[in-house]
């Protein structure tokens, strides 16, 4: 049933990409601008103003930022994915889950554009020779997609119940950014704050990306346990909530 709507998912992702970049001179290259500007700002700040003394800092930042951006942008945008398409849901029968999943797909596509350009550039700039092990980030990305899908299911359905969710997510993401090891390393932290950050489901993912893409290490088996468990929990919980709420969408969205 849902497989039949694969083409719809693809068309929705394509539509959003086309609408976003059409009529613009540099088109998809805009998806590089956001991470580049953030890299420049954070890079300058934490090299010259508040030095963090992380070697190859721009590469470190890049690895964290592109994955953080993917997560944060998806979370914020997915909250509206049901409510903003209410007129469709009221007039055509199709599986509503396509909508939040299309939001995930849209940001995944932008992330891919940024990653394939910026990561090789950073490796080149620092003279790093990536090996096949670099591809070890793909299973981590898979888990992150599960995180995001679950959260998108939950937030899109919850926004139908209360429009406050949207505003809440926008604020929550600001806070979560500093509780996620994107621009700092966890091992330099001590005590309570480190325990707090360890509770963040994004932390094991970020540590994984940093190990694989920044330090070129491979991940030991035990470091997959936490992110896999979080992925199952978020995806399962989000989907269960979405399914319970979906009958409301054509009426309340």
């Amino acid at each position: 049933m849902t497989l039949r709507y694969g083409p719809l998912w693809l068309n929705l992702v394509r539509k959003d990409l086309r609408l976003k970049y059409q009529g613009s001179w540099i088109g998809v290259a805009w998806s590089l601008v956001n991470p580049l500007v953030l890299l420049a700002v954070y890079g300058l700040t934490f090299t010259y103003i508040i030095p963090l003394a992380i070697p190859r800092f721009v590469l470190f930042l890049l690895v964290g930022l592109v994955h953080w951006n993917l997560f944060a942008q998806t979370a914020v945008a997915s909250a509206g994915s049901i409510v903003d398409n209410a007129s469709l849901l009221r007039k055509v029968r199709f599986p509503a889950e396509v909508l939040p999943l299309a939001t995930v797909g849209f940001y995944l596509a932008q992330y891919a554009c940024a990653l394939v350009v910026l990561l090789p550039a950073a490796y080149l700039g620092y003279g790093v020779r990536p090996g096949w092990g670099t591809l070890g980030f793909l299973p981590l990305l898979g888990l992150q997609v599960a995180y995001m899908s679950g959260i998108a299911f939950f937030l899109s359905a919850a926004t139908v119940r209360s429009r406050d969710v949207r505003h809440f997510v926008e604020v929550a993401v600001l806070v979560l950014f500093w509780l996620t090891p994107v621009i700092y390393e966890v091992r330099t932290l001590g005590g309570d704050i480190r325990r707090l950050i360890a509770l963040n489901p994004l932390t094991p993912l970020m540590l994984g990306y940093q190990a694989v893409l920044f330090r070129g290490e491979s991940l030991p088996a035990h470091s997959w346990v936490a992110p896999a468990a979080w992925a199952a929990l978020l995806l399962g919980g989000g989907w269960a909530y979405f399914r319970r709420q979906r009958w409301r969408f054509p009426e309340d969205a």
Partner: protein
Amino acid sequence: MASELALEGVSKDFVLRHNRADALKLRFVGLFNPAYRERLEVLPAVRDVTFELARGEWVGIVGRNGSGKSTLLRLMAGILAPTRGRVRVRREARLVSLIELGVGFQPELTAVENVFLQASLFGIDSARTRRMLPRVAEFSELGSFMDVPLKSFSSGMSMRLAFSVAMAMDPEVLLLDEVLAVGDVAFQQKCMERTERLRQDGCTVALVTHDLALVERVCARLIVMDGGRVVHDGDVRGGLARYQALLSGHAAGAPPELRLASGSRA
């Protein structure tokens, strides 16, 4: 005869929230002023409806405003979930519902891109859509406009495109809300001819409309709705008489009670 679509004791209740008080401020005001307090009202839009549509059957659905006919159609289409009862559609039946023409059309995208989007909304894959394209272009007479963004279309052109896409999907069960013919007289004529072919192909059609002449012309069966109930299900002539009686009774009777049974709150 195998039924294409069957409703078994289907009811749909809408919950109306008078003075919807989501905001804390409104809730607070409501504590002191009852006029601002939220009240919930259960509105039975469709009540205990049972019928079957056989293959190739053309049924008209009429009723006064708010009698529940559009809600019924959306229940049949599977857009709304029934509060009670069951809606069954033959497995694998290509069901196309046109509650409104051009749902999901994107003005910034070209006609071709919109056809793909629209077809996939109905679960049609890209290969089949590609095969549909020549027929859509031909029927809609929009051949040289197919690569133009929809925003430069007139509303008539958009309607023609939407209708052509629906027809090119070769529906087996077609659910229509007031959209059987669109465009100018010549195009409407074409729509009616295409509709005749649907009949020959054995397509099953349910048509919600206020156009009684149209009902007489194309339908062999008429369902009359009133207050969410089916008050007539059978021959067209008898149904029309029943409907006329409802209309005149309504005109002569007490002021109409508030009925928002169609459920669209937009």
